[in-house]
C-alpha cells in the first residue's frame, strides 16, 4: 500500500512540475513592446509614417473622418446629408453641444492624438537620425503638428497648447487653454520650421512638401486677416512654379488621375486593396446612397454655362452621356428614386468616370484632397484684394482659375471695386470648391456664417426645415469631457 501511495505521489508530482512550467509572464504575440523603439534608423521612417496614419482616424458619424472634406459641406448651405455623415445634419438641426460625442469630441480627440504622436516624434527622432535627414523628418512632424493645431484653432479656437513628449507628462495633470491668437502664432512658428526643412518640390508621394506648409500658412494668415503677408506668401508659392492647375478639373478627384495631378498640394492617400476608405468606399455613401446632396441654393450660385455645375452635380434626366453611373431601371437620373431626395442634387464630383452601378463592393480609393493650387490662387486674390484692392494681380489669379482648360469661364469684368471683387471671389470659391469642405470655414472666416446659415432652407420643397447656426459656433464647444477633466483650469468657450 505504501508503495502505491508513494508512486502515486511521484506521478502526481511529475504532473505538477510539468504543469507548473507555464509562468505568468506572457506578452502580446502580435504587437511589439514600446521599449524596443527608437533604436535604429528605420524607426524614424516607421514613426513618421505613423504620424500620417492619423489622417485616417474616424470620428464623424459612420466612420467619416474630419478629412472626409465633402462632409463639411453638409454643415453649410451647399449640401445636405440625409444619413448624417460627418454630423452636419444633426449639427444643423440640434446644434452643437459640449456633450456631442461624434465630431465635437472625436475630432478634438483625434487632433490631439496626432499632436501627441508628433510631440513624441520630435522629442525622440534625434536618437536615431541626424543631419539633413533629421531636419527634413522633423520638418514633416512640425508641419503635421501645425496642421492638427490649425484644425483645432479653426473649430474650437481656444485650446491648450501641448508641446511636450506625452510620456513625460503626468496623466493626472490639468491644463488651461490658450487663446486662438496664441494657438495661431504657435502654428505659424511650426509652419516656419516646416517650410525651412521641407523639400521644395511638387507634391507626389503623400509626404508634405514645402509648398504644402506654405499653403497652410497662407490659410492661417488669411484666417488671421494678415492679408499682406498672406498675399506675399501665396505669391511665393505661385512664383515657385511647383504646382499647376490641372487641365482636367475633375481629374483632381479620382484615381489614378489624382496621382499625376500637379494641382494637388496635400491629400489623404488611399491605396487599394489594403488602404481603403473607412467603413465603405466613398461611392456607396456619396453616389449610391445619396449621402451628400447639393442644395438648390448652390445650384443657383453657378453662372450660366459654368461647366463646373454639371461637373460637380447630376441633374434630373442625366444618363450615361452625362456620366450618370447607374444602369437598368436607374439609367435615367430621377429625383425621388433610389434615395435621391427631391429638391436636392446628386454629386458627380469624386466619381471615377466609367464606373457602373457603384455600391459597397465597388473598389475605389480616391485620395481626399485637402489643398489644391486653385485654392492658393484664390487665396492670393482674396488677400491681395483685401490688402490693396482689386489690382491686376487679383484679376490674373482669379481669371486663371476661371479660364482653366475645360472650365473656360470668361474673365471678370474690369473695374470692379474691392467690395465687388470680394463678392466675385466668394462666388468663385463656392463653385470651384463645392464638395471640398472649404465653405464652412470660409463662411466663418468671413464672419457671415450666421447670416448665411441660420434659418437657411436647405430644401425649398420643405420650407419648414431650417438650418440652425449660432454666432457662438464660431468657437465650437470644447468637449464636456475635457472641461470636466481639467477643472478648474479649463473654461468652456462662451455661451455653451
Amino acid at each position, binding site marked *: *500500500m505504501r*508503495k*502505491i*501511495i508513494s508512486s502515486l505521489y511521484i506521478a*502526481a508530482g511529475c*504532473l*505538477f512540475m510539468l504543469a507548473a512550467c*507555464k509562468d*505568468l*509572464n506572457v506578452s*502580446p504575440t502580435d*504587437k511589439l*513592446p*514600446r*521599449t524596443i*523603439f527608437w533604436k535604429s534608423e528605420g*524607426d524614424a*521612417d516607421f514613426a513618421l*509614417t*505613423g*504620424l*500620417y496614419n492619423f489622417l*485616417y482616424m474616424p470620428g464623424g458619424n459612420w466612420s467619416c473622418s474630419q478629412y472626409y472634406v465633402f462632409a463639411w459641406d453638409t454643415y453649410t448651405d451647399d449640401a445636405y446629408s*440625409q444619413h448624417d455623415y460627418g454630423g452636419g445634419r444633426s449639427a444643423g438641426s*440640434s446644434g452643437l453641444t*459640449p456633450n456631442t460625442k461624434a465630431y465635437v469630441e472625436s475630432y478634438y*480627440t483625434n487632433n*490631439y*492624438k*496626432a499632436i*501627441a504622436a508628433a510631440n513624441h516624434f520630435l522629442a525622440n527622432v534625434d536618437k536615431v537620425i541626424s543631419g539633413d535627414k533629421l531636419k527634413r523628418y522633423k520638418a514633416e512632424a512640425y508641419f503635421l503638428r501645425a496642421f492638427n493645431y490649425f484644425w483645432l484653432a479653426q473649430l474650437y479656437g481656444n485650446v491648450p497648447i501641448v508641446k511636450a513628449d*506625452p510620456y513625460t507628462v503626468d*496623466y*493626472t*495633470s490639468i491644463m488651461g487653454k490658450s487663446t486662438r491668437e496664441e494657438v495661431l502664432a504657435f502654428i505659424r512658428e511650426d509652419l516656419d520650421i516646416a517650410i525651412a526643412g521641407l523639400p521644395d518640390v511638387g507634391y*507626389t*508621394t*503623400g509626404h508634405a512638401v514645402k509648398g504644402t506648409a506654405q499653403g497652410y500658412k497662407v490659410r492661417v494668415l488669411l484666417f488671421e486677416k494678415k492679408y499682406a503677408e498672406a498675399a506675399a506668401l501665396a505669391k511665393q508659392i505661385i512664383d515657385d512654379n511647383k504646382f499647376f492647375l490641372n487641365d482636367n478639373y475633375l481629374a483632381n478627384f479620382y484615381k489614378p488621375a489624382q*496621382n499625376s495631378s500637379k494641382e494637388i498640394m496635400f491629400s489623404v492617400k*488611399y491605396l487599394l486593396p*489594403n*488602404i481603403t476608405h473607412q467603413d465603405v468606399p466613398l461611392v456607396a455613401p456619396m453616389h449610391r446612397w445619396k449621402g451628400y446632396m447639393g442644395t438648390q441654393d448652390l445650384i443657383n450660385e453657378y453662372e450660366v454655362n459654368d461647366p463646373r455645375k454639371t461637373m460637380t452635380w447630376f441633374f434630373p434626366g442625366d444618363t450615361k452621356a452625362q456620366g450618370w453611373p447607374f444602369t*437598368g*431601371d436607374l439609367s435615367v437620373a430621377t429625383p*425621388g*428614386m*433610389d*434615395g435621391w*431626395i*427631391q429638391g436636392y442634387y446628386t454629386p458627380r464630383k469624386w466619381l471615377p468616370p466609367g464606373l457602373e452601378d457603384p455600391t*459597397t*463592393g465597388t*473598389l475605389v480609393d480616391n485620395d481626399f484632397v485637402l489643398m489644391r493650387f486653385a485654392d492658393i490662387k484664390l487665396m492670393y486674390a482674396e488677400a491681395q484684394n483685401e490688402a490693396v484692392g482689386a489690382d491686376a494681380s487679383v484679376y490674373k489669379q482669379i481669371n486663371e482659375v476661371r479660364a482653366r482648360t475645360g472650365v473656360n469661364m470668361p474673365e471678370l469684368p474690369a473695374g470692379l471695386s474691392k467690395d465687388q471683387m470680394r463678392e466675385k471671389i466668394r462666388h468663385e470659391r463656392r463653385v470651384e470648391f463645392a464638395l471640398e469642405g472649404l465653405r464652412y470655414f470660409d463662411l466663418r472666416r468671413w464672419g457671415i456664417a450666421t447670416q448665411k446659415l441660420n434659418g437657411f432652407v436647405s*430644401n425649398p420643397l420643405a420650407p419648414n426645415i431650417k438650418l*440652425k447656426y449660432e454666432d457662438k459656433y464660431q468657437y465650437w464647444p470644447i468637449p464636456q469631457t*475635457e472641461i*470636466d*477633466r*481639467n*477643472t478648474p483650469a479649463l473654461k468652456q468657450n462662451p455661451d455653451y
Partner: protein
Amino acid sequence: MKNYLLRMIPPGITMYVKRLRFPFAVMSFFILASLHVSAQQTVRGRVTSADTAVSGVTLQLKGTAVGTQTNAKGEFSINAPSNGTLLVSAIGFASQEVQIGGQSSLSIALQTADQQLNQIVVVGYGTQSKRKLTSAVVTVSGEELNKRIATNPTTLLQGQLPGLQVVQGSGEPGAENVSLRIRGVSTFSGAGNDPLVIVDGLPGSLAALNPNDIESVSLLKDAASAAIYGSRGANGVIVIKTKRGKNGGFSLNYTFNLGISNPTSLPDVVTNSAEYMRLSNEASANSGRQPIYTQAQIDLYDNATDRVKYPNHDWLGDLFVTAYTKNHYLSLTGGKENTTYNLGIGYTDQPGTMIGFEYKKYTVNLGLSSKVNKRVTLGTNIQLNYGNKLNPRQGADDSFLSTLAQSPLYPPRSPDGRWIKRAYSNESGNKNIPAIVGENVRARSEDFYVQGNISLDVEVLNGLTWENRAGGNFDAFKFSDFRPVVPMFYYNDMSSAGPLDVGNPGFDARRSDNAYGVYYSQLNFKRSFNEHSVSALAGYQQEYNKASNLAGSRLQYTTNYLKELDAGPKPGMTNSGTSTEWAIRSFYGNLNYDYQDKYLFGSSVRYDGTSRLPEDTRWGLFYSFSAGWRISKELFLKDVSWINDLKLRGSWGKLGNQNIGIYPYQATLSIRDYAFDGKVQPGYSSGMIVEPTLTWETTQVLDIGADLTAFNNKLSVTFDWFNKNTFDILRQAQIPLWLGMEAPFINNGSVRNKGVELGVQYRGNITRDLSFFAGANFQAYKNTLEKYGKREINGNLIREEGKPLDEYYLYIWDGIFQSQDEIDKSPKQPITPSPGDLKIKDVNGDGKITDADRTYVQGKYPSFQYTLNLGLNWKNFDLSAMLYGSQGQKIYVNGWGAEPFRQGSMPTTDWRNRWTPTNPTNKMPKIYMADGYAPVQGYPSTYFLKDASFLRMKNLQLGYTLPARLTSKAAMKSMRVYFAADNVFTISDYPGLDPERGGDGLYVTYPQIRTFTFGASVQF
C-alpha cells in the same frame, strides 16, 4: 469479483498489475452485467411511515438492475436472492438498505428525511452538508431545473436561485444571449459582471451542457462561499455538478419531447397598403419631405380587386413561422463493484420562429467514477458539444428591422418567382429577408466544444484525502459567410432593381479556437473529536488559456455556386489572425470548525497571481470569515417542536477580479501604415500609457442570513441581506484629452450593491393522494456608484457618483405642442418644433431648454424580482407552474417598430391615434419619418423610455406517470408523459414586443418564444 476481472485482462497486463499490486478495477465499468447468480426467491412486503402506507417507494436489489415500486397500499414484491440487500428510497424519506436475510416477507418503516439538513451542497472545491453551511449558498437540483424544457440550460436558472438575475435577451436558437448577474451589477470595468461557472470542479461552460446532464446547480453568492475562487469569484460563482452514476444496478432513460413554438408577442403593424401610403405621405409632409405616393397610386391600391397585383401584404407573417423543436435524450447510468458510470447523449433540433434560423445541438456527457482501491478513487467527467447554427447573415435584429422596413404594397416574391425589392423605386426600405433566406444567404457557424476532467482522490489517512483534478476545455469555431449576387425587381412594372443587398458580394471564412487547461491538487482533512469537528482544505491550482483566430475573405465571385476561399478572385482578398494567452496560479485553503454541530465557523483564503497584471502587483490575497449559530440546537428551543432547524449566519470577505483585457499593463506599438507613393508603408506609433502599479479589483461582501425549516420540514425559509462593495475597479483613467494618449488602466472607483433575498418553500399533503408544494423567491437590490471621478454622459446614460451606475439621463417628454401659439409661449426648445412635436420640459425653469434640462430618470435596474413556484401531485398526476416577475425597470428603445417609417418601416397600428390638428392628443406626436426627424429623434428623451415591468407565467407543466403495473409489463421501470407550456402569458405595459430583453437599443430583437411541449420519459 476482483479475480474474475483480473482474468479478463491479458496476461501481460495482469502481470504488470499484479507486480504493482495496483487494482485496475476501474475497467470493471465496461462490464455492465453481472454473471453472479444466487438462489432467487420472491420477497413481499409493505412500506410504511408513521403507520401509513407509502406508495411509489423504489426498492432495488443492490448491485443489480432489478427493482420495483410500492403500490398505493404500500405493498411490493420482488425477486431477490435470499442473501440480497434492498435499497429503499422515496422522495421525502431517508434512504435505507434492508438485508433480506432469508425472509420472504418484510415490513419496512421509513424515516422522514431531514432532507434540508442532510442535503449535501456542492461548494467551492468540495461539498458541505447544508446544516453546516455558514455562507450564502443556494442550490437547485437538475430535476427541478428540468421541469422546464429548454435547449440552453442557462435559461433554466431563471427564478430558481434567489440572488441570481437571469435575463434571456433573445429567443434566437443557439444565441439566447442570457445574462447572469449575481447580486446586481457591481463594476463598470471591462472586467465584467459575469459570474464564474464551475463545471465538475473546474471552470467551464454551462451553455454547452445538455440540461438533462445536470445533477445540481449551486450559487455561491457571498464572499465566504466564493473567496476560495479568489481572483475569479468577485461576481459570484455558479457551481454545476453533472450526473454520475449511482451504485446499484443499471438504468436506461430515454426522453423525447416536441416543442411547438411561436413568438410571445409581435407588434401590430399597418398592413393595409392604402392606409400605409396615406400615413407615409402624411409623415413625409410632417417631416418636410415630398410625398412618396401619388393619389393615383393610392387609389390603385384602395380600389383594387386584384390583390395579387395590389396586395395588402403581411410581412411579419412571412418572417415568423411556427417552429417545431425536437429533443432526444438518452442516458445510461448505473454502477457496480465500486464503479459508477453515467452516459448521456442528447440531440436537439431547434429551428427558429424567425425564418432562416436553425440550430442543432449534439451533446455527450460521460461521468465515470471508480474506487480502484479502498483508498483511491479515479473519476472523469467529459462533455462534448457540437453546435451547428445557420442564420441570415446579419442576424436577428437586422432580419426583423429589414422586414419591418418593407411596405405592404408588394410580396417578397412575385408569382413568377422573382424576388421583389420594392413596389416603386422611390420607396425606401431595407433588405428582403425572405429572399435572403430563400437564396440561402446565411452565415454558418459550427462550434466544437469539449470540456472534461480527470480526478484522482487518495485517502491518505483516515480523514485526510489528497484530491487531484486536471482538465480543461477546447473550443473550435468555424464560421463562413457567402454573399451571392441575386437580382431583384420592382413590383409595379417588374423592372430590374439591382442586386439583393447582401453587403459586399464575396465570401468570409473564420476559424477560432480556445484551449484552456487547469489543474489543481489539494489536501482535504475532516475529523471529529468528541464535540468538535474540523475540516480543512489546502491546495494549489493553475490555469492557462490560449486563444487564436484566423480569417480570410475574397470578393466578387464569378459564380454563386462555389463557396470556398479558393474559388474566389485574388484581387482584394484579405486575411487576419492573431493569438492571445493568459495564465493564473493560485494557492487556496479553507478551514471549518464547529462545536456540537451548533456553533459553526468558517474561513477561506486564496492567493492568486495573474499574467494580466504587472509582476510586482500581480499577486492578490483574498479571504473570508463566516460563522453560523444553529439556535434550534439550543436548550431554550428544544421544546419548540415546530422548528426543525433554525440557523443564523454571517460572513464577510474579499474577492478579486482581474478579467480586464489580456495585456493591460504592457505598452505596445500600434501598427499605423500609410499609403505613400503607391505603396503601403509600414508605420508604428506608441499611444499607450500603462500604470505600473495596476492591481486587483476587489469586491468585499458582508452577508447576514438565516435558514429555517419548520413544521416537520414542510416549510423552509432562507433569507439573506447583503452589502457588496466593489472597489479599486479596473478601468481606464479619465485622462485629459489634450494628452492625446490611450488612457492607462488603473484601479479606481467603487460600486455598492445592497439587497435582500428571500426564498420560501412549503410542501404538504392534503390527503394521502394529494400533495402540493409552493415556493416563492424574492430579490431586491439597490445599486450605487459611490466613486467614479468626473461624471460621464454616454448617450442616454450617466455615470455620476451617488447615482446608480449608468442611470438614465434624459430630457423629460412633457406632452405634445398643440399649436404654434403654445410653442411661442413655451420655453425655447433647442430644436425648432412645430405643432404636433414633442414638448420638452424646462426642468431648471430658466425659460429655455438646454443640456442642463436633462435629468436623472430611475429604472435602469429592476426594483425587485420574484418567482412563484406551485406544484400539485395527485395520484399519478403532477402539475407545476412557475411565475416570474420583474418590477420597476425601464428600457430605452428606438428605431424600426418603435418609430414610424424608419427606412419606410410599417408603423404600428397605435399610430392611428397619432396627434393631428383634429386629434389633439398629448400621448403621441404627429406621425413622422423616423430617418432623423430632429424634433423627436434629436433628443435623448423619456419619449423613448418604456416601462418594462412584467409578470409572466414562465412555465406550466402537467405530467402523468403510468401505473407501475402497466409499465412493468413492458419491462419499463417507469414512464412519464407530460405537457409543458413555456412563457404561457405575460402581463406588462411594454408596447408590442416582449419586455424581457437584453437592455436598451433597437426596439426589434429576436422575440421571446412561447412553446408548448409534449414529451415522454421512459426508464428501463
